[in-house]
């Protein structure tokens, strides 16, 4: 809606429950989104190719193909934001989903406002204008071009991982708490699930660090949060 009449964000809903899918479509339409429903996991990728969604809402338990596998397939070829719909609030399920490439998750039963807020946060990228180039350690970040290179080699990051890296890299050596990162990168207040941050930091590290076990770019500050540091800038 804020994007104007000519732009309606497209949401691909992958859920096997027909009633819920229909209800989601109704709510999304009311909130100004276009939506397309797929009820089987094995049809999800084809629908993704055909529909070109801006956000994917993905249930984890699907007939045909597991939601986790669908998530991995989509993530393998695209950085489109994926929001998991899960019936299980258990740590393990959520972490497995996030590790397979989802950007965010909502636990059923959710309130429509909660879901819409999350979709909006994913669609409306919090782009900070600026054409500057940041560098952290061996990484060079082209903010405007959404490109990251490590020693000249391009590194492929999802938009969310990119935002996380840029947020940390803009103020190197400032420690960000998980809550601040949630607010600045995901755009939530009081959505206090810091596992989101933990998992995404792990995923970011696995892409940019030489040794993810001993990170040199995204450092953990025990009991506080994370900060960006470069070994070259260190005294």
């Amino acid at each position, binding site marked *: 809606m804020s994007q104007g009449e000519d732009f309606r964000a497209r949401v691909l809903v992958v859920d096997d429950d027909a009633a819920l899918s229909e209800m989601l479509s109704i709510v999304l339409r009311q909130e100004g989104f276009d939506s397309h429903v797929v009820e089987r996991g094995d049809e999800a990728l084809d629908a993704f190719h055909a529909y070109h969604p801006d956000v994917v809402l993905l249930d984890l338990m699907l007939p045909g193909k597991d939601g986790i596998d669908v998530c991995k397939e989509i993530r393998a070829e695209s950085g489109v934001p994926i929001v998991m719909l899960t019936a299980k609030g258990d*740590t393990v399920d959520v972490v497995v989903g996030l590790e397979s490439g989802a950007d965010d998750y909502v636990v059923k039963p*959710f309130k429509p406002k909660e879901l819409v807020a999350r979709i909006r946060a994913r669609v409306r990228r919090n782009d900070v204008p600026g054409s500057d180039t940041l560098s952290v350690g061996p990484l060079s970040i082209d903010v405007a071009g959404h490109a990251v290179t490590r020693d000249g080699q391009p590194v492929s990051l999802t938009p969310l991982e990119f935002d996380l890296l840029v947020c940390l890299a803009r103020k190197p050596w400032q420690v960000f708490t998980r809550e601040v990162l949630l607010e600045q990168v995901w755009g939530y207040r009081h959505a206090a699930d810091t596992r989101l941050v933990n998992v995404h930091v792990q995923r970011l590290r696995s892409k940019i660090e030489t040794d993810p076990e001993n990170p040199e770019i995204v450092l953990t500050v025990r009991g506080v949060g994370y900060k960006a540091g470069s070994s070259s800038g260190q005294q």
Partner: protein
Amino acid sequence: MAGRSRWDDLVGRRAPEALRRGLTFWRRSIQARVVVSTVLLSAVVIAAVGWFLLRQVEHGLVQRRVDAILAEVASENSQAESVLRGTPGTDTNATRQALNFVQGLSVSGQARGFRVVMVSPGRPGQRLQDRGPEATRRADLDSIPRSLIDHFDALGAEASTSHTAWTFTTLKGSGRPGHAAEVPGVVVGTVVSFNSSTTSRTLYYLFPLDDVQETLALVTRALLTAAVLLLLLIAALTYLLTRQIVTPIRMARRVAERLAAGQLQERLRVAGEDDLARLATSFNQMATNLQRQIRQLEELSRVQRRFVSDVSHELRTPLTTVRLAGSVLHEARTDFDPATRRAAELLQTELDRFENLLVDLLEISRFDAGAAVLDLDDVNLTDVIRRVVDGTRSLADQRLTRVVVRAPETPCIAEADVRRVERIVRNLVTNAIDHAESKEIVVMVAADEQAAAVAVRDHGVGLATGDSALVFNRFWRADPARARTSGGTGLGLAISLEDTHLHGGWLQAWGKPGEGAQFRLTLPRYAGHPLRHSPLPLVPDDAAEVVA
């Protein structure tokens, strides 16, 4: 001084340390106790038997020696007397006769090892030295006991020739060269008379018993050696025997310990058919039964967990649809007539309640199934409290109360699952807001090296005596007539308690009617470490004197 104090240290610390270890070993080892007590008892018996044997041998040896001595004295006497009688009676000098007599005896005495003393009869009590003694070399007059002298004095003139009497004594300075100065001996007294004189003389033979003493010493040494060897043998035997019993017992203990530690497949090795083997068989049977029971329980727990998970999924999806539909209706309620509008509103609020109840119930059943796991990290409790207080501000405003945070400057860190800790604190704060009756609520936080604590204090209705233990019960209400106003499910504190137990922490309540209540959460600094104290008091300072 330094040396002295170091020595004191040694005595003061190491000696009791060694003693303590020794005592521990003594308490723990049946083997040591059996061996030591067997050896001690045997030593007592062996000592008694040995002592008895030694007495018998000594008695027999001395008796035989004395008999031999008396026989020898008799033969010497008769021999000497026959020599005397054989000599012509011209020599009337009694003293000279006596001298000859003694010299005659001295020759055979030298060969046989006895000494001779001859004295004239004297007044009772007169010393032998004053009676004109004739003695062979190295014959000590003091060795002749007074009692024997008195015996012959008492006989006086009536003493018949060849009357003998003997007694034991100690021979002083008369031992053989190179032997002890004092040796036990026998003194034999006899009366002799010479032809030339009517007066008889008393003759004392001094026989040393050192050969008997030497034999006895030899026997004693042999007995002692035998006793020591026997004791060693008994000790070794007992050690071996107890080892046969104790080794299987120790093995059983180790296996039992491993079973207790969760290695349920551990079994004892069964060898033979004796009592120990049967013990091992029974033990193994017990372990097998235990293992089966535990497997069954694990299976049940797995099924339960699976069921909870399935129910969760099956219930949540339709509830989400209803939830979304309710919201759509709620959004559109202004277009409805008043009755339908009210219905939409009720649908919305009751859906909230239903949802909260479902979430709490699923959480509780997850605890019951043992499926709850911790996601640990270092958590600053001050941050958690500020977030919770921010999040509950609207509820507090609505209830016309205020939540004040009292936190130290330094972070209060504990290793915990931030999601669960936040849920505990949120439950405590909303519970306090519920019961605060619009009076101020204080949230305190403190930490030290071992623990971190949060206390939530309200000044509302308080808790009746005994209720502080009941508040954590599921669906418990202080006053059944009181309505739930904040939409609490009645499971909040029960879940908080389970969450706290999962961390190995404490969640306690204090309260007095009319004075409010205080709930205190204490978490160990490192998960799994035992808690011994809390950095915050359970009974608030402002109420302490009332209690005291």
